[in-house]
């Protein structure tokens, strides 16, 4: 029987995994988003509104919130086409802060005082979603559309010239990622049964990116490894007392120095495949 402490940590891992996957999906098209906590916040508030105020069952509420957030993602995706690289990252950062600022002033759902009334969900429920979406991403990674995503990331011009519709691909990735982030938000709200705007800050967006990059940004499973690492590592540095987070920061840098491509990467998978067939 797993201790409830680990169950709690694993719930955090599942939620962080979904957030990280949402960054991973956008990153697969070569775009960096620093504002996915914004989509997460939209998902958290919308799901909570649906379950608490409207009495909608949670699973349905999550699906609705994902669809709504996905639509917002698509709307954001179009202007985002005009921006590249670090400039896009900054625009998304601004988007995330705007969402947070919006909920801070959204008195209908508590504003700064936060919002209550959600029913606690089990670890199993969280991981059903997390595993299902991880599996979905893993299947998609072998699909035609994912090849197209990678082509767009590598060379947009060349991709267009072999007939790939780069606009639809990039905007679609934004929408899908926004939907996944919204599910992370809905689950977060129903795990902690309380949300406030501060939960969806820049810091959380950065955590998503960190999980993807540390775990490995070329395979979806990297997000899982990264999420595990980010949740578990600080817990296991507790013996350092006051120096815990300073050392944590140092370890982050060290990990990047040793494996800048992240712990998992595609060549590693090939390596194991090769071993299997040999």
């Amino acid at each position, binding site marked *: 029987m797993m201790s409830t402490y680990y169950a709690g940590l694993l719930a955090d891992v599942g939620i962080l995994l979904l957030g990280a996957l949402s960054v991973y999906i956008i990153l697969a098209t070569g775009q960096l988003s620093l504002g996915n906590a914004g989509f997460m916040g939209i998902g958290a508030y919308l799901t909570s509104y649906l379950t608490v105020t409207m009495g909608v069952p949670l699973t349905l509420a999550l699906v609705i919130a994902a669809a709504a957030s996905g639509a917002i993602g698509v709307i954001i995706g179009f202007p985002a086409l005009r921006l590249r690289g670090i400039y896009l990252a900054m625009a998304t950062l601004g988007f995330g802060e705007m969402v947070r600022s919006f909920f801070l002033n959204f008195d209908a759902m508590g504003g700064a005082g936060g919002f209550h009334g959600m029913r606690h969900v089990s670890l199993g429920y969280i991981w059903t979603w997390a595993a299902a979406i991880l599996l979905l991403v893993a299947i998609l990674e072998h699909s035609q559309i994912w090849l197209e995503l*990678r082509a767009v990331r590598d060379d947009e011009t060349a991709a267009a*010239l072999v007939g790939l519709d780069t606009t639809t691909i990039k905007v679609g990735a934004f929408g899908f990622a926004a939907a996944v982030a919204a599910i992370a938000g809905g689950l977060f709200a129903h795990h902690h049964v309380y949300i406030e705007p501060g939960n969806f800050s820049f810091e959380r967006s950065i955590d998503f990116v960190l999980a993807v990059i540390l775990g490995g940004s070329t395979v979806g499973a990297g997000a899982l490894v990264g999420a595990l690492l980010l949740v578990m590592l600080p817990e296991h540095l507790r013996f350092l007392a006051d120096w815990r987070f300073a050392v944590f920061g140092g370890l982050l840098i060290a990990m990047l120095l040793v494996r800048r491509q992240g712990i998992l990467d595609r060549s590693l998978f090939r390596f194991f495949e090769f071993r299997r067939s040999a």
Partner: protein
Amino acid sequence: MTGKQQPRLEAAGITKMFGGIRALNDISLEVLPKQIVGIIGPNGAGKTTTFNVITGAYRPSTGEVRLDGKAVTAEPSHLIARAGISRTFQNIRLFGDMTVWEHLLVAQPHSDFTLRRLLPTRWADPQAFRRAEEILEFLKLADVKDRIARSLPYGIQRRVEIARAISARPKLLLLDEPVAGMNHDEADDIRRLILTLRDSGLSILLIDHDMAFVMNLCDYLYVLDFGVMIAQGRPDQIRSNPVVLDAYLGHAT
């Protein structure tokens, strides 16, 4: 070149301005079905610009591009590609960490957005899968199928790029300096490949500096200099054209 045959590609009166500079000035050219046409000219003559206008990367200031009689001027690049024009690049542009096989798969044409594309490639479109296998055989790339394309020798990278271009099932193939930087044997390989492609029904428009290569290969030539079309004709006509000799061979040595 007087037949009544419908040209595969027609570019009519193309002018392209960059700021105040006239990069292309009233260029017209055509490529007939199963024809190999070359564009030659010194550096900066506007050859690659012409390619960019044809493939939709640049919108021409005036003029029209027609494929099989249908205007495609300044359509989005991917629609032009789907209509039947593929190209390669002077500096090879392969996709980052994709294998050769993935390059062939990604370029296969698909009927627009269908849910099948979300399936693993093998099931998404079995026909595309088979076509990609055929191209792999045809271009003798089967040995390097699972290698990362960018890690291969230069000559093979060229072949991968051409393979990717023909995977999109074009009617017209644009090749931007296909033998640049190649030794004689490699260049000859490419020459034979281009001829085979032509025989299989493709029209080909190519740019190159290597006069011998172009003269040997092309059915028809256009000569550009400073954005102006200074001559056109069969290779033997061009070879003896005094204007060309003066403008092109003169300062290109």
